């Protein structure tokens, strides 16, 4: 294959500046929200003693899952030796880093005591899955940085394949760790399942690739030049379909497993059939808008010769991903803990009641600012360093 030349992101027509300003405004609003919540306490959010992880966690987990999946394009080129993906490998690594940074920022800023970050980074309980994840996240960042260096430094390309292997293995372990944060919790019937790890891995492929496609589209607009050749669009299309079907399959397994066990049919009714907000988010948000609509757009043959764009299906899949995490995480907490299986319980502490949750503006701003942090990092790095292939035929 011809040598690939890379370039920085040139600012044409002011689109790049517009994007940077837009994201800066969102991040500033998010930081304002953090200050507000830290000053008054979490009482100004919709969270409480039952829904302890709200919208910021939905965004944080979504971004962290997406980060590991964003590395996929690089992995395919290095690990599975597919040279057609190679021009996008650098961008893929960069997105993995920036999405992870965005997700972790939201996670940390939503802590009750974000000022104790140093304690979180120096005092560990090694039995905690959370503590494992702190190592997995920082390790991932270090490995991807070395991987990018191997890809970008002169005469270092020979190391990019072994680094690609390490990064690929690490990202699988990382997403397993993220899934296990939920899967290992026996108290929460909605998500206490070993399938959470593979479900999150499959989801990461969808979110990560969808983010990559959205960013490639934005970059193409900024450069006023198409980035993806038709062959790559076809390959990305196939991958999106495959990964989305894998997510559906594992989602069905998660629910079927619970439905089969009589003790867990109530929680399944709650999550899927009760008509409450969580079942609506699942069926309308995740399944209809976030899965079936993009699948239809990806699968149904086009009548015109117009170039197929993956932008809309990707945006819908990202929306579906947020809906998936929202329904699972918030719905899983809203469903009351079963202290006495088979009995009706009540108390002054909302025992036996479905907990209500309405996210407030600060939570929304903090959550969205995670995406903007990721976009800002990607944008600025692309502007300064050669992360993009020169042209469509690269």
């Amino acid at each position, binding site marked *: 294959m011809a040598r690939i030349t890379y370039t920085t992101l040139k600012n044409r027509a002011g689109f790049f500046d517009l994007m940077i300003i837009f994201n800066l405004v969102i991040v500033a609003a998010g930081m304002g929200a953090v200050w507000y919540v830290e000053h008054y306490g979490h009482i100004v959010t919709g969270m409480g003693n039952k829904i*302890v992880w709200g919208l910021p966690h939905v965004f944080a987990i979504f971004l962290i899952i997406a980060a590991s999946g964003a590395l996929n394009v690089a992995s395919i080129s290095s690990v599975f030796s597919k040279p057609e993906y190679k021009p996008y490998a650098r961008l893929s690594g960069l997105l993995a880093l920036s999405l992870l940074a965005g997700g972790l920022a939201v996670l940390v800023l939503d802590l009750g*005591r974000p000022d104790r970050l140093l304690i979180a980074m120096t005092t560990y309980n090694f039995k905690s*899955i959370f503590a494992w994840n702190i190592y997995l996240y920082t390790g991932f960042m270090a490995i991807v940085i070395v991987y990018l260096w191997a890809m970008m430094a002169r005469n270092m390309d020979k190391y990019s394949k072994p680094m690609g292997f390490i990064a690929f293995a690490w990202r699988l372990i990382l997403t397993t760790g993220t899934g296990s944060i939920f899967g290992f919790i026996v108290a929460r019937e909605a998500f206490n399942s070993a399938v959470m790890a593979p479900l999150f891995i499959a989801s990461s492929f969808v979110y990560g690739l969808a983010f990559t496609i959205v960013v490639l589209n934005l970059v193409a607009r900024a450069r006023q030049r198409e980035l993806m050749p038709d062959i790559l669009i076809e390959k990305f299309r196939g991958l999106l379909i495959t990964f989305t079907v894998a997510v559906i399959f594992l989602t069905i397994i998660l629910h079927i497993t619970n439905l089969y066990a009589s003790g867990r049919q109530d929680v399944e009714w709650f999550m899927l059939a009760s008509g409450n907000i969580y079942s609506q988010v699942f069926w309308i948000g995740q399944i209809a808008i976030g899965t079936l609509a993009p699948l239809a757009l990806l699968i149904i043959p086009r009548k015109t010769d117009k170039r197929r764009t993956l932008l809309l299906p990707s945006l819908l899949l990202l929306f579906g991903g947020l809906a998936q995490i929202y329904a699972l995480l918030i719905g899983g907490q809203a469903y009351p*803990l079963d202290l006495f299986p088979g*009995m009706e319980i009540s108390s002054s502490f909302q025992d036996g009641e479905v907990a209500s949750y309405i996210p407030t503006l600060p939570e929304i701003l903090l959550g969205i600012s995670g995406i903007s942090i990721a976009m800002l990092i990607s944008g600025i790095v692309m502007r300064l360093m050669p992360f993009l292939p020169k042209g469509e035929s690269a």
Partner: protein
Amino acid sequence: MTCTSGSKEFIDKSRRDFLKKAGAGVTTFTLASGVTLMAYPQAQKRPLDEPVSAKNRWGLLIDVNKCTPECDACVTACASENGWKQGGDPRVDAQWIRKLTVKNPKSGYESSFPVMCQHCENPPCVDVCPTGASFKRLDGIVLVDKHTCIGCRYCMIACPYNARSFIHEPLTDQRPWAPRGKGTVESCTLCVHRVDRGDEPACVEKCATDGNGALMFGDLNDPDSEISIRVATYATKQIRADLGLNPGVRYENL
């Protein structure tokens, strides 16, 4: 009462208690060993200058038959002892102990009894805490180290008993012996400050005087303690025993 004066009172009282008990120890040593058992309350198992040890496993036994639905002496005592407010907004206000009403939907039979941190032998909150702020003392009391809690709330996700609360807003007038602060998680401490000085938890004490004597505190590791004898003699239950957490809180007639 300011925090400083409260601390001083607390220290002075601890000092007095220590001297009192040290003196009592000498007295009982010179008397017969049988007198020692009579002289000490249930919790007094170690001198204050000795570390906590796994010889003890502090626990509670709650007799559901004695507990009446209208009585909340234990809840009031806990709130007053540890400085959390009762009757606030259940969404955001802390409740270290609450009265739970359990109804059998088939028969309609109802019972009411207190539920608090169950002080598990294998506490999931301790397992999941990233910094080790959630910890279990050797004597089985599960606590939160308020200096290392980062407020991640993972313990609240993991606890199967709804036992923990998050502090959602700034607090004032905390009790010196029950540190609490915005942005951290908390739960029943089994009145560790009282247990360490040889007293019973506030809920147990108040249930005996103002309630129906439904709560018993003691050392589950000591086969001669009243609680152990009772647990060995009558059928008792643990909430969600199927989870294998072995809570230190047992229920009789449940």
